[in-house]
């Protein structure tokens, strides 16, 4: 159980940052993971009053505040329209609605948890993270930095930024039982014309690879998707734990990637058909 004496409800990011320089203080996200730890800390820093619970949409990007709950993320109309079913699929297995009303995007991303569906999703989408002190950086850089240097560890995550470069996205995960931690998470996306695949719960934290093979350049077929899935599975190290073996995970990476890539092909086909219909209609007018 988490024990502490001080609760700081900060009024500015500067105040949060200053308090977080003290080793004995921790920043609260949803507190779901933190409270499971047997730990005594000096104080906790609550960002609830900083307006970081908003999702802002511009023509170029979505800016998702660190204190946005996973439920708000799941229900945001702009994001749902932009990411389609993948957004819902990546979040709906995370325990229940009551849990997702408490869990935050920032808590999931900052912790870089191995089991994080959220990290897997945003890594494939080539999102960025914005820190109060360190500024913006690609999420892939933050996710692969190990271990976190003191500067980042003591920084305040403000937001996740999702540039609108996503052409198609598909998400799948495997769980031994509903609402459990995932055995494997996998997201494939076409971003700026490049296929990207992220894999999490390996059980190590999520990592991504971009398509370096050109296997899919002449079109996605069941054969090229399967070959690509096999190639992707070779790019990631996997491990064993109580949920699954490393070998099983390796095989499932190939399967989930293939299925995701086939779904991307369907999405692209639908978009092309829609564009063609609009052009035909425009021509007739």
């Amino acid at each position, binding site marked *: 159980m*988490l*024990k*502490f*004496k*001080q*609760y700081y*409800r900060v009024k500015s990011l500067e105040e949060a940052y200053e308090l977080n320089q003290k080793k004995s203080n921790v920043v*609260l996200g*949803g*507190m*779901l993971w933190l*409270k*499971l730890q047997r730990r005594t800390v000096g*104080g*906790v820093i*609550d960002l*609830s009053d900083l307006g970081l619970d908003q999702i802002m949409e511009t023509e170029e990007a979505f800016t998702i505040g660190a204190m946005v709950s996973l*439920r708000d993320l799941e229900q945001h109309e702009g994001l749902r329209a932009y990411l389609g079913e993948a957004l819902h699929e990546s979040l*709906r*297995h995370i*325990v*229940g*609605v*009551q*849990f997702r*009303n*408490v869990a935050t995007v920032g808590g999931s991303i900052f912790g870089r948890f191995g089991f994080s569906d959220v990290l897997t999703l945003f890594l494939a989408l080539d999102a960025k993270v914005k820190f109060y002190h360190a500024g913006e950086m690609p999420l892939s850089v933050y996710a692969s930095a190990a271990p976190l240097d003191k500067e980042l560890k003591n920084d305040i995550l403000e937001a996740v930024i999702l540039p609108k470069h996503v052409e198609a996205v598909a998400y799948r995960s495997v769980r031994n039982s*509903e*609402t459990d931690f995932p055995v494997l998470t996998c997201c494939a996306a076409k971003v700026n014309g490049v296929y990207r695949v992220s894999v999490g719960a390996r059980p190590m934290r999520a990592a991504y690879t971009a398509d370096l093979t050109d296997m899919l350049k002449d079109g996605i077929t069941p054969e090229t998707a399967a070959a690509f899935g096999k190639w992707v599975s070779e790019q990631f190290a996997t491990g064993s734990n109580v949920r699954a073996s490393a070998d099983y995970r390796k095989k499932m990476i190939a399967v989930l990637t293939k299925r995701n890539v086939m779904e991307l092909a369907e999405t692209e086909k639908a978009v092309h058909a829609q564009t063609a219909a609009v052009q035909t209609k425009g021509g007739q007018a």
Partner: protein
Amino acid sequence: MELKFTLNEVPRVVEISADTLLLDLLRSMKCYSVKRGCETGNCGLCTVFVDERPVLSCSTLAARVEGRSVVTLEGLREEAEEYGAYIADEGAEQCGFCNPGLMMNAIALYRENPEATDDEIKEYLAGNLCRCSGYEGQLRGIRSYLEFKKGEVRHE
């Protein structure tokens, strides 16, 4: 530290420790419908509404409800009785320990999506665990409750 919030529509001012969890606070205030279950955020027994949204009180810091409205099952007596009758009709109530959390979330479901399909009901209530029932009776009860609320079925 001092905490001001509204509990079941009554303004309250209480003294708490910085690390008090909402579950402990509510039970200390005699809201015994709020059950202590897994305490790991998985079972849904401790579900309450904070500003009308269902949350896990075992994982919510009491200090975070400063200025907000908290509702427990004690504050939803009429709706709870109505819903409880449908659960009982389907024989879905066995030991009953999970019922308060399930009721809270089923009421939240109704408020958010009164037209919920079976799949949506299952998904919404995935965070409410029951060790006795197997969920089928509960699903039937919730379905009947939603139908009743739509005015399609009259409870006798």
